[in-house]
């Protein structure tokens, strides 16, 4: 049943609504982080393409890769990737897959377990890439 609405005012939303609240700002950065993660995947594809081109092509790639702008870009991408990961971990805590003594595990436990697994896996990947196994 529809209400009789006479001259109801429809408020206009500011285009800068996301600047009003730091949590909205963080949300926007989190959404933006997806673009940086995609950008990095293109960089990796570029690296593979250079690798396929042989030694000279890869040396040329490395010259660009180690340049200051590229390092800055990588640092920015890393920051957004960390933000993306941490916010994803905080999301996983919202969906309890199991219960301990009838209660869902505490958010800190779920997030902490995710972080530990993340660090261990990252460590293993670094060891595989840089040797040691």
């Amino acid at each position, binding site marked *: 049943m529809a209400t009789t*609405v006479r001259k*109801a005012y429809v408020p206009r939303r500011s285009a800068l609504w996301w600047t009003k609240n730091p949590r909205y700002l963080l*949300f926007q950065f989190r959404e933006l982080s997806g673009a940086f993660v995609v950008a990095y995947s293109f960089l990796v594809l570029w690296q593979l393409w250079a690798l396929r081109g042989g030694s000279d092509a890869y040396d040329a790639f490395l010259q660009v890769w180690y340049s200051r702008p590229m390092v800055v870009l990588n640092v920015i991408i890393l920051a957004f990737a960390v933000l993306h990961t941490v916010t994803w971990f905080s*999301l996983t805590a919202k*969906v309890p897959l199991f219960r301990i003594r009838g209660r869902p595990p505490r958010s800190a436990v779920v997030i902490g377990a995710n972080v530990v697994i993340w660090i261990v896996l990252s460590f293993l990947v670094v060891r595989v890439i840089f040797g040691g196994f």
Partner: protein
Amino acid sequence: MATGARAGAATASAKPAPRTTGASKTIKLRIGRYRPERSDEPFYQEFTIPYREDMVVLDALNYIKERIDPTLAYRWSCRMGICGSCGANVAGTPQLTCAMYLKDVKRSPITVEPVENFRFLKDLVVDIEPFMEKLASVDPFIVREEEKPIERGEYRQTPEQLDMYRQQSQCINCMLCYAACPVYGHDPRFLGPAASALALRYELDSRDQGSAARLAAIATEHGVWQCTFVGECSVVCPKDVDPAGAIQQLKARAATRLMKSMLLPLATR
């Protein structure tokens, strides 16, 4: 919790009169007003009223209505964080005006506006009909495949089964979560936080058998899948319902059900 604090204040009539902080102490409020019979645009109006430390925003609104301007329109009822009708934007944040103490608002003048993301009807009164329609769409009641006669007794439940949905059952339909949700602000077709939380409340109820129809209604483009997990709904919720978490749980349940229906088509109802 704010509600508990306000409940204490609501029973203050049995205690000694609240100490005034000085006879001449006043506070200024800036109230968002909309008077459709006079103007097409909302405007602000400032009021200066006597101040007491134990005053909540709703007390201030009541003072203005009773002593200064009887035309001021706003909703309220219980004064103790139960009815969920007195929500407003206080200093930019959706709050229950009965639970927000003036002394806790750091800005001056204290701005009180209608909650965002709803159409204004008059002053602080907004159109709640869109929310009521969303609420009805999730079947917020226990659905049984076959009702048993009353003489066969009630549907019994253990305390553990009650605990499964106790958090979501605390929702008071105050709609502050909708006011805080930028996704709903962007697209009013979004089912939104409170209706989703109440859907989960019945999904988790051991007595309910309406899951199939309910999940089909909410696992849609404008249902729970439209949520991008901003999380602000859970921040402003005065009853700690955590609607953002409820929506993520519903997503998991809907996805699980879909996978089951694909892999075990005969097993799902």
